[in-house]
């Protein structure tokens, strides 16, 4: 989904190579995400070659954006915590 969120559409083989999985693994993931209503797969031809184009549905895009936002919040809290550790301890009195 990270590949598709950055794209209007992407070819199956491009997604497979980008996320470095096999055809069968990606097929299973696409089927699962299609069933959940997150991904749309369109089959077609370029010349005589069959191609499958994948894209995120609006629901899929919203779900992934929410997931990524949550991850960024968790990751940012790590940076904030380490920054606070670098600060000298607060002194109430001179």
């Amino acid at each position, binding site marked *: 989904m990270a590949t598709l*969120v*950055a794209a*209007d559409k992407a070819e199956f083989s491009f997604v497979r190579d*980008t996320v470095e999985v096999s055809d069968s693994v990606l097929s299973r993931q696409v089927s699962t995400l299609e069933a959940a209503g997150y991904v749309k797969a369109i089959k077609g031809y370029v010349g005589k070659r069959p191609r499958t184009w994948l894209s995120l549905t609006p629901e899929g895009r919203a779900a992934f954006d929410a997931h*990524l936002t949550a*991850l960024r919040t968790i*990751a940012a809290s790590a940076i904030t915590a380490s920054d606070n550790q670098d600060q000298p301890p607060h002194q109430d009195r001179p």
Partner: protein
Amino acid sequence: MDHSQHQAEAASAVEHADRIARGVAERSRWYTRFLVVFGIGVLLVTPLWGLLTGGVASVVLNIAWVVFVIAITVYVRRQPVAARGMARRYRWVIGAFAAIYALVLVGGFTAFPHNPTWWIPSGLAAAAPFFIGAYLEHRR
């Protein structure tokens, strides 16, 4: 698993997603090349269309334009990925081109037939949406 481990995993996942997004953007640079090439085609063909007075040269120009459009369409269809928003941005480019092109052709054929002072700048005007689109795409 403790909190810091969760944070490290989240940071790693975010970094991975960002890296993939950069890869998609990189692989979508074909669109900039497409706009530049299409723009050059329009820049050259538009004045010729207005300046040529028919005959063999016009026939050759029409055939060359058809071949060019087919070639560039095949190129587009072979690309494996289209970056987010590309289709929407392309609709703006092609809409602006269509509007300018209609003005150029109607104005040129009715008021300035075979007049280079109309047709040469017109080529630039008709190609401008493609070049502006390519510039904006390059800056993204």
